[in-house]
């Protein structure tokens, strides 16, 4: 069976673009968006998010047959919180400088609705391996959008990319302060969602 025909593979690919969590499902716009004015911070937060999404999906899926329905949300948040703490500790131990910069925001990964959304929508109904792929796909699809936003916000807002100044920035570049501030993130996300929705819709229209 080809990768894209398996349950997990299909979920993985769908989450990347066609069912992208950000502009198709409108999930997880929260905390991670706050750090999208610098590309480096965005990548690090996304790495933590992908890790947590994939592993909590696996764990929720593995426990799905034993979890009483009434407390499943509590069990899910507990699992997610445990993984996020792990990410925090790993970051503190191996990337102390990174932790210094985005430490306070790592904890907020717990509240990213994508993680719980995937646990609830997919992992409670499927076996661990497809759930892992589904979580990975959702995390990566989300990261993709955030990286696009971060690239635009950092170039326009700071005149740098990855902290490296743009060539001859002092000649032509002018700072867009709004891109540094929170409203810039909202406007960028709206534009990206517009573009994503438009392309997905036109492709679907072409198929049928």
């Amino acid at each position: 069976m080809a990768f894209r025909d398996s349950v997990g593979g299909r979920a993985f690919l769908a989450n990347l673009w066609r069912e992208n969590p950000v502009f198709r499902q409108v999930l997880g716009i929260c905390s991670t968006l706050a750090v999208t004015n610098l590309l480096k911070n965005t990548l690090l937060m996304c790495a933590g998010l992908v890790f947590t999404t994939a592993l909590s999906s696996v764990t929720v899926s593995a426990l799905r047959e034993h979890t009483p329905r009434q407390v499943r949300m509590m069990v899910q948040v507990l699992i997610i919180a445990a993984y996020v703490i792990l990410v925090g500790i790993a970051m503190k131990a191996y990337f102390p400088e990174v932790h210094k910069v985005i430490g306070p925001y790592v904890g907020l990964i717990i509240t990213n609705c994508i993680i719980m959304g995937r646990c609830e929508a997919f992992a409670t109904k499927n076996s661990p391996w497809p759930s892992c792929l589904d979580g990975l796909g959702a995390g990566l699809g989300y990261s993709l959008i955030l990286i696009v936003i971060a690239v635009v916000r950092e170039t326009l807002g700071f005149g740098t990319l990855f902290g490296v100044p743009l060539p001859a920035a002092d000649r032509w570049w002018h700072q867009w302060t709004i891109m540094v501030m929170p409203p810039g993130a909202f406007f960028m996300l709206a534009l990206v969602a517009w573009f994503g929705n438009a392309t997905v819709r036109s492709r679907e229209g072409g198929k049928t």
Partner: protein
Amino acid sequence: MSPVLAAAAPQANPGLPAQLLVILLAAALTDNILLTRFLGMCSFLAISRQMKTSVGLGVAVVFVTTCTAALNYLIHVFITVRLGIEYLEYILFIVVIAAFVQLVEMIVERFLPPLYFALGIFLPLITVNCAILGVSLFMITKEGYGFWQSTVFGLGSGLGWLLAIVLMAGIRSRIREDKIPEGLRGAGITLVITGIIALAFVGFSGMLTF
């Protein structure tokens, strides 16, 4: 309060009620949790379509944030700090929130069935509202906050969230019939409006310091 922070506090101690009022207004307006920290966006985008549900969810959020801020403050002071297990706080806080929401759900279902049916799915959804955990996490980083300060901070943040969602629901009900590009409908246009409201709230920042 440590000597360092005592010196950082306003020149003359304005008294607890005045301080609480400032915290309340600051949390609701100038540091609006939704518009300046992006917390609670998911349910904000999904629910703000209708005024009635927006108000219902907003009130529920106010109630839950206030109570969980108080509970989590007590846990922070009497359990995690005392035992030196601050690293377990995420787990404890989120479980407290989930348990509290579940409890509220059961009580409302039992004693106020009409309200229960009106709120429907939104009640359990509060657990995944990022704003609530956010409040609990920020509250403990604000050093010098006592029990009342933390509770009022929770109340103010909840009220700020309620304000934002009600504003948005009002605006969305007006633009329902407008010509909006296909791909921008729903979440897209809501984000643009949120951005504009957020710009206005940036103007508030710095008016209150505490």
